[in-house]
């Protein structure tokens, strides 16, 4: 009897030990699984999550702006120790460039997040479905525009149905069985531009006119204007820019300096990236301010060619928008004030650009949609106390664009569109676009490499 009790208790003990199996079910503490996207608010959160990626240094937080300027020698130098940047400035980047890889990687994260949001639209009420769809497509569209322009031959180089840009992925990848969805060959320049236009047109049609710091209808028109310009479609470019100027609730900031280093959007920000102390593109090794601002605010690695002042007439406020400082390694030099303060809003499209675009597009299209080229260009010049132009030639538009938009990543697109030389290199030189990352070709044999890499 004693023994029986003993062995029963042993058996009982084991029974208990075996029963804590459910202890193995552990929920992740600080993240969610896709099945937890169950309602409209969750879908909206995914769209908002994508703005964080736009803010990333491999997107508008730094590289969409700095790298194009470096590629076309837009009057800047790199005095820092980070080799991937100095390689780009010297056109010595190769297929293992960590910058090319970073831009590519972040771009497709943006695209996948948009695709995920788009695949969940059945959870959204009819009231919001069109606007949410438009917002997801806006982000996807501008991302494809940037990737296509940085990794593919320019539209102006022709052969758009044979020149390759980047793979088009339009469905989300959510688990290991979806991998084929994201494993695509490069699409042609033409296909990418068509997709960009389709996304942006949907965005322009369905985004609200006012959407706080999020993308609004006019942001979509502004990017459409950029796309049409890149295509040399000046009539559409002028019309799109005109929509922003006439229909949008934007005005030029009263003075040039008020367009930059703001805590919130300025009146001329058509679309801008928000930053604050807690959420920004980086303060140590990345971010526009980190590179462009002198030490100790930034690293001061990106210095400005002091001869840029010669491009401005005396009295032009923009001529004095520079300061002397030194880099983190002690190199003395000039710095632009555009990215002088940490945690500031990063203007992506300013109204001033839309005036310049409408002016040039009208000029080249021999039209006067909205206003005359002269009035538009002088609106921008007048704001900075530059004397008004009385006559205009083709070069004036190029020069004014650079005077106004220097260090904002605009020059690259002008160079490509107008087939301008960069030093001794022609506009379609191999080294004036980025390589397809070798790492990517290692895992996707369908990808071709750009010539020259």
């Amino acid at each position, binding site marked *: 009897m004693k023994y029986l*009790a003993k062995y029963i*208790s*042993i058996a*009982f003990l*084991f029974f208990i*030990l*075996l029963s*804590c*199996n459910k*202890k*193995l*079910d*552990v929920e*992740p*503490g*600080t*993240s969610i*699984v*896709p099945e937890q*996207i169950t309602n409209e608010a969750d879908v*909206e*959160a995914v*769209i*908002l*999550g994508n*703005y*964080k990626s736009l803010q990333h240094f491999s997107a508008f937080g730094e590289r969409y702006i700095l790298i194009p300027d470096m590629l076309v020698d837009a009057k800047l130098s790199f005095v820092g*120790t980070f080799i991937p940047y100095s390689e780009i400035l010297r056109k*010595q980047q*190769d297929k293992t460039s960590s910058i090319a890889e970073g831009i*590519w*990687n972040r771009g*497709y*994260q943006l695209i*996948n*997040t948009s695709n995920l949001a788009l695949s969940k639209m059945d959870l959204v009420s009819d009231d919001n479905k069109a606007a949410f769809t438009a917002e997801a497509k806006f982000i996807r569209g501008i991302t494809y525009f940037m990737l296509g322009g940085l990794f593919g031959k320019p539209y102006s180089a022709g052969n758009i149905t044979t020149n390759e840009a980047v793979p088009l*992925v339009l469905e989300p990848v*959510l*688990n*290991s069985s*979806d*991998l084929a969805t*994201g*494993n695509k060959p490069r699409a042609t320049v033409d296909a990418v531009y068509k997709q960009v236009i389709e996304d942006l047109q949907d965005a322009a049609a369905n985004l609200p006119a006012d959407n706080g*710091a999020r993308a609004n209808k006019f942001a979509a028109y502004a990017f459409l204007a950029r796309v049409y310009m890149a295509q040399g479609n000046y009539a559409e470019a002028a019309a799109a820019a005109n929509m922003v100027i006439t229909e949008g609730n934007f005005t030029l900031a009263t003075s040039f300096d008020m367009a930059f280093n703001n805590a919130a959007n300025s009146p001329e920000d058509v679309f801008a990236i*928000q930053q*604050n*102390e*807690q*959420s920004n593109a980086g*303060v140590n090794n990345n971010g526009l301010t980190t590179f462009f601002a002198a030490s*100790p*605010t930034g690293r001061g690695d990106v210095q400005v060619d002091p001869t840029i002042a010669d491009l401005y007439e005396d009295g032009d406020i923009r001529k004095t928008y520079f300061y002397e400082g030194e880099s*983190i*390694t*002690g190199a003395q030099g000039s710095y632009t004030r555009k990215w002088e303060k940490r945690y500031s809003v990063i203007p992506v499209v300013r109204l001033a650009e839309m005036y310049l675009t409408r002016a040039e597009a009208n000029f080249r299209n021999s039209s006067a949609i909205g206003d005359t080229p002269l009035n538009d260009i002088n609106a921008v010049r007048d704001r900075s106390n530059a004397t008004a132009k009385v006559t205009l030639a083709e070069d004036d538009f190029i020069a004014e664009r650079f005077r106004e938009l220097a260090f904002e990543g605009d020059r690259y697109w002008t160079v490509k569109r107008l087939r301008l030389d960069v030093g001794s290199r022609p506009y379609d030189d191999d080294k004036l676009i980025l390589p397809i*990352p070798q*790492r990517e070709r290692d*895992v*996707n044999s369908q990808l071709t490499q750009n010539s020259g890499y």
Partner: protein
Amino acid sequence: MQRFYSLFVGMLVLMSQLVYAQQHSTITGKVTDARDGSALPGVTVQVKGTALGTATQPDGTFQINLPQGATTLIFSFVGFGTQEVNVGTQRNVNVSLSTSDKDLSEVVVVGYGTQVKRDLTGSVAKVGAREIENFPAPSFESALQGRAAGVVIESGSGKVGQGMKVRVRGTSSISAGSQPLYVIDGMPVISESQSDINNDNTNPLADLNPNDIASVEVLKDASAAAIYGARASNGVVLITTKKGRPGEKTRIELNASTSFSRPTKKRGFLDAKEYTDLVLETARMDGITGARYGDFATEQEGIDYFTNLYTQAILDRFSLGTNWQQQEVNTNWEDEVYRDVAHARQLDLSATGGNEKTRFYVSGFYNDQEAVVIVNRFRRYGGRLNLEHSATSRLSLGINLAMNRSQLDRVTNDNIFSTPGQLVAQLPISPTHDPATGELNSTTLYSNGLIDAAYSFNKQVTFRTIGNAFLNYNFTPYLSFRSELGTDIYNITEQGFNGKQTQDGGGVGRAEYFFTQNASLNTNNYFTFTPHLGAQHSLTATLGMSYLQNDFSASTVQGEGFPSDAIKNLAAAGTITSGSSSNQRYTFLSYFLRANYAFNNKYLVSASVRTDGSSRFGPNKRYGWFPAGSLGWVISEEDFLKNNKALSFLKLRASYGLTGNAEIGNNSYLTLLEVTNYPEQPGFRPFQLGNEDLHWERTAQMDVGLEFGFLDNRISGEIDYYNKQTSDLLLQANIPYTTGFASIYRNTGKLENKGVEITINTRNIDTKDFTWTTSLNLAYNKNKVKDIQGQIIESGQQRAVEGEPIGVFFLPKFAGVDPETGDALYLDADGKTTTDYSQAERMVVGKANPDWTGGFNNTVTYKGFDLSAFFTFVEGNNIYNRAGVYQAAGFGGGFDNQTKEILGRWQQAGDVTNVPRLSYWYGNGHRASSRWIYDGSYIRLRTVTLGYTLPQKAASLLRISGARLYVAGYNLWTRTDYISDPEVNTGVTGTRTSSAPENITSGVDFYTIPQARTFTVGLNVKF
């Protein structure tokens, strides 16, 4: 689990009712020394399978009560072989203990039990307290280095409190952790760094007082380790702390020591004269090169241009108005990196004792250790209580508990300008202090790290409690049950501050505060069955379960904008720049069964199986099975060898089994969206692509071993061959970024480790007054990445490449210097030399893992004196000096001060040298290449100790029971071809989970602090 425990306790109450009346028989006897027949006092006499025991009297006699059913007594004494005696019907037992079979009769701790070394069929390396005690390093692993064959330990740098890289029989994974599992008194403990990921890893095992350790056993082969199943592929390190013994008179022991350290080696940099001469030579060379390239019309024009440029920008600027032509300032910045002398103090006091009812070990310690590098310092104090009480002859219970606090004053990681190690880049013409102001010089080539040392701090404080409560119950003498409930609570706060003046302070002052809590709950419950099957058979079986739950939570706050340096915490921050908190959990649920059987003490069989379930895998792939089996044959017990005079022991053993690895971090099988904090617009975005089919990484290991003893075991040792095949690698496989993700964990690929381990111990001289013993261990390991599906997994300059050992250096091959032009040459894809770096082909130019590792120890004792000299060595690995591109690149990487090797540079046509022409402007041979790959082999005199133990008479006069005074030296002598200390590895060491880049990255030097050369004086007194 709480419910389970209340039930459990209830049951024990129930069981204790079942105890029936005891019948004792009394055994008496005497224990003597086999060498001369003299009485041995203080020998522990224990009834096998129980806590009952006593100790022999001064005349060697003992008396003990043997409960009914018990038949075996165990006699053990320090320095002698343990003996088990089956008393049968005898009532008087006389035993003589011998030193000759000490090793064979040694009790070895294995998972969930112990075994006698003679009966082991697995490969287990044991390191005793003697080797670990008083070693002047923060963590006990340092003391193991070179002591156990096949266990490779790298401390990485001379900083204190840093993570350690430990590999048992090679690296057996690529993307999953490869550190062994650490188990203290049966409780798996937190061993991976919990510190700020932006700094070097720290070592949580440093919280264990090394002087509390009784023994460390490393389970190396599958047969030994498989009882830890899913967590055993990387080996298991079992740490057993000191315990009191029955019948032991209470002994109080005091240890005190003080140490003085300096770096083992300084690199040696140019002095002011050499530096200025070389800068001017660089200007001349760049001028000539410029003319050659057509940048200048004449050489003189180029020379004038560059001389003017470099003089102004470097020599004038950084000499701060001092006369650099006359070397008015000649700063040795390398000296500024180190303390003049780094002090360490250590004090610990312990008491141990016990009787049949209660046994205890209690200790307290204080330890304060300065690193050789400035700022870095590690201070610890704490205590331990190990207590066991026998409530009845059947029931005993107890607790092992340690609590301590440590404080680590840190420096930034090797790759930050502010770290002291990078001070060597500053120019010898730069004064440390600005002569105009007397303040620290802020006009230096790179921000002056001395400013950071003065106005920044990073302090990490850890509170650690490791303990378990346990209970043993003997249902019958042959069936017992043990239950353990343990916890490891690790609280760590990290406080950092960078003053306005400092580089990291960004001109505004920055501070941060991290709080991390990591708590493990563990319970082990198992039955041990040791039936009597007659004299020829012996069987031990173990059946049980284990559950582990780990909860991690962390919070961080960072702020900036301080009014002054007066207040250094976040209360004074103008802006909070970030704040966050997170939490995670993982669990393991396991069941295990093991049986060891011996026939006639000759034929040994062991088999075990464990199944583990883990929260780290998806619901369908949660459980894994890990079986192992082994055979042993004690050939010397066979009749044909039994009376052989020369051969005293010979055993052949073989094992095969499966073990697992799950060290990939939590939730890796799930697709996850992370939280984003775009201003005012919180959201989600995908960041991890899941794989529901993810399962254990499996390692199948075969081991064949031969153990031998000759001439009364005066020469003994073992030889092992192993073959470890890891498959289903938990590989972080790259996938196209176009999927929106960078990688996915997949079970794919194969890796192998094969090797040989040899251990030989000899007693060369063994007399009462004079002894000389030698031990040698040697291990050879060959690692090969067999299949990673053609992927290239790269980390820094290193790779995992199919067909090569993991962590090969993959760099352009430097091919010397063109004697005509002084241009650096590389090999191109066709094997021809080229001066164009972009044409240089990257190739395998070295490997980070050694072929041979080992240790060699000699101990001589004469009367009260003892002297031991311990060498460790490593052969066949390379070291890459990643800082070479800055500090030995002929100014091509900047005007950093250069190491002296640059003095051998090419100067004129016809010079035959391996150091290219100096050039700043054009650069020459300054890009990463095999130019800075060195042979990393070394042999070093790791420890030499001279001790004197007071004679018994003198001790009695002082009314103490013993005292030993010793002096020791560490790293006194090293032979290596490497330019700095060869025990070096910057950055990640000690990573257990996550993507574990340290599997690939090792043997890299980047301004890394060398190891310490230390002198220690210590005193050990027993009361």
